């Protein structure tokens, strides 16, 4: 495969706040036209990394290049070429939809006819036509999110940075938001997105899994599944899943069953082990000894959550 020039290159990026290392030796590259996701729990260093890539925060060590621009030396050289949606709502609540878009557009040097066209397009994309003069605080979460995206891409950036863009937005709006992102990628925009939603991470072309400031795995969702899972996932329906999880974990600890991990999934238990299918009877027996009835057992495709937990345990 011919190596394409990467849109974002991060080399050994590290950020310490006093004794605390928020981002620890993080290296990755993002290819043109892909959606690259940073998946990790809160406090794993996602936002800190994004802020360093935008030149808002100076790294303790390491280097980052966006669109071939060394961000540390020339942060202003990427300003007009990237778009950014921060974690908190980035528009002004007391301005109307139109006033917000006009401010963004003018700030990026648009004027007159060009500005008008872009605003119309953004309104159309966000589905906010006819609501130009509504104050932004009157919009619901999903609409605001789409308006913020509209503002962030008004100047047609080459790279879009999204920091937990759909936090606190209902599932339907989230889906619509991702459809918009796919449209943008189809137009050639590269998207860097952080999230802690597993279902959202599934939408990314490639992912980096983050834990305590370190990247613990990188790859497409399928690659991660193949590489990270030692064994298959068995889903168990039982009369008391919480207790079943405890019982099976104890069996694992005491070495009575060769299990990789046992996790509670709502009302279900996920057991991961090499050749888990042949362990079904042993598992049922173990549960019966503790007077837990086990129902249907089935080997399932591992979810990204299974994968993530498997990586975190390693």
């Amino acid at each position, binding site marked *: 495969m011919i190596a394409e020039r990467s849109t974002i290159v991060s080399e050994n990026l590290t950020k310490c706040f006093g004794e605390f290392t928020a981002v620890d030796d993080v290296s990755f590259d993002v290819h043109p036209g892909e959606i690259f996701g940073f998946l990790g729990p809160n406090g794993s260093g996602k936002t800190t990394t994004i*802020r360093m890539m*935008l030149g*808002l925060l100076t790294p303790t060590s390491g280097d980052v290049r966006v669109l071939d621009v060394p961000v540390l030396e020339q*942060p*202003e050289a990427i*300003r*007009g070429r*990237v778009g*950014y949606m*921060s*974690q*908190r*709502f*980035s*528009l*002004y*609540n*007391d*301005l109307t939809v139109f*006033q917000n878009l*006009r*401010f*963004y557009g*003018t*700030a*990026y*040097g648009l*004027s007159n006819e060009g500005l008008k066209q872009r605003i119309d397009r953004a309104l159309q994309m966000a589905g906010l036509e006819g609501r130009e003069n509504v*104050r932004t605080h009157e919009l619901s979460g999903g609409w605001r999110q789409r308006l913020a995206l509209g503002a962030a891409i008004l100047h047609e950036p080459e790279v879009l940075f999204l920091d937990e863009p759909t936090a606190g937005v209902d599932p339907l709006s989230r889906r619509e938001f991702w459809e918009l992102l796919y449209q943008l990628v189809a137009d050639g925009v590269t998207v860097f997105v952080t999230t802690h939603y597993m279902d959202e991470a599934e939408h990314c072309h490639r992912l980096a899994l983050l834990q305590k400031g370190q990247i613990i795995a990188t790859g497409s969702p399928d690659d991660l599944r193949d590489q990270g899972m030692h064994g298959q996932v068995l889903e168990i329906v039982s009369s008391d899943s919480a207790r079943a999880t405890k019982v099976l974990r104890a069996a694992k600890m005491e070495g009575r069953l060769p299990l990789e991990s046992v996790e509670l999934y709502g009302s279900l238990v996920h057991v991961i082990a090499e050749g888990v299918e042949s362990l079904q009877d042993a598992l049922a027996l173990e549960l019966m000894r503790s007077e837990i009835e086990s129902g249907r057992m089935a080997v399932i495709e591992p979810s990204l959550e299974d994968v993530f937990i498997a990586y975190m345990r390693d």
Partner: protein
Amino acid sequence: MMAKWRKIWSLSLKEFIHLRSDWWLPVFMLFGGALELLLVGWATSRPITNLPLMILDHDRSAASRSFVVSLENTATFNLEEPVYDVAVIEDALRLGEINAAVIIPPDFSSELSSPAGRPIVAVLLNGAESIPATAALRAIEGVTREMGEQILVQRLGLQAEEFEGFIPSLRVWFNESLVEALYTIPAELGLMLEFTVLLFAALSFTRERELGTLENLLVMPFSTLDLVIGKSIPVIMVGFLDFILMLGITHWAFGVPMRGSLALLLVLALVYILVELSKGLMISVMAKTQHQAFLLVMMVGLSDFMFTGYAAPVESMPRVIQWVANFIPAHHFLEIVRGILLKGAGMEVLWPHVLALTILGLFIGGFSMRFVRRSLS
């Protein structure tokens, strides 16, 4: 170049839109100062009069009555009903119902008329309210001095017109009738201008930080200087408008004269606004929340307040404070305002203050720019 200014103006325009929806802020800025000026102006533009005074007259003679009438004629006092018991006076003083009381002893008129007599009156003052107490004392002293002179003339056997006494020939410059308002109102003007500019400037970046929009602003293609200029334009415009409004009130509502050059005053007010703006912007990047910014403004404003000569003239303050006053922009601006308004002074007189204000401004402004630039990037 055009595009750059259009960008900066878009930021200023946004600030004005914020002002419209946050209507209490411009109302405070334009009318808070003016209202304060009106209230303080009315309250201090009159001499102290009608202080409640109680008289306990044990003598009840023609002489004691004429003394009481003299007190009443000063207009400083408003006489309460005559009382016949010291306990009533003590209670009234304790309750704060009166500012002063005079007790005339039974031998007042006999001491007054006997050749070697020593007429005495007892004066009780409510020292908890020191300013009315001082005014009361001054009025009573005036009346007794006059009476003393009359006694002296009488006992020397002179005719009244033969005695001239010692009279200083008074001629007051700049504030002919010594109206206190002419001194305090310009101070109030400078102070309110400082608060307005400081507060508005201090909120500029703090508000964006608190709302979480500052990050986006920093990612946009604005340089730090663009941001500072864009945020400053509305502050300067509102501050200047505020100054003109308040200047109009001082002139037309309180008769503060305009003896010097209005143009010079306006130019120097603009310089002063820029100096206070620099301080405000520093507060703005230092404070994490609007609440903190507000408290910092109060702290800075209230300490500067000392040096405007509003509460007490700087010349009567301890040496150290007089020295410190040289480093307070508000102090120099107030000297300039009073100089131009009351004395009709021009640059030939005011230049030390103008120079000091300019040097302080350059210093504060330069430091502020470096500080803002460092904390925003």
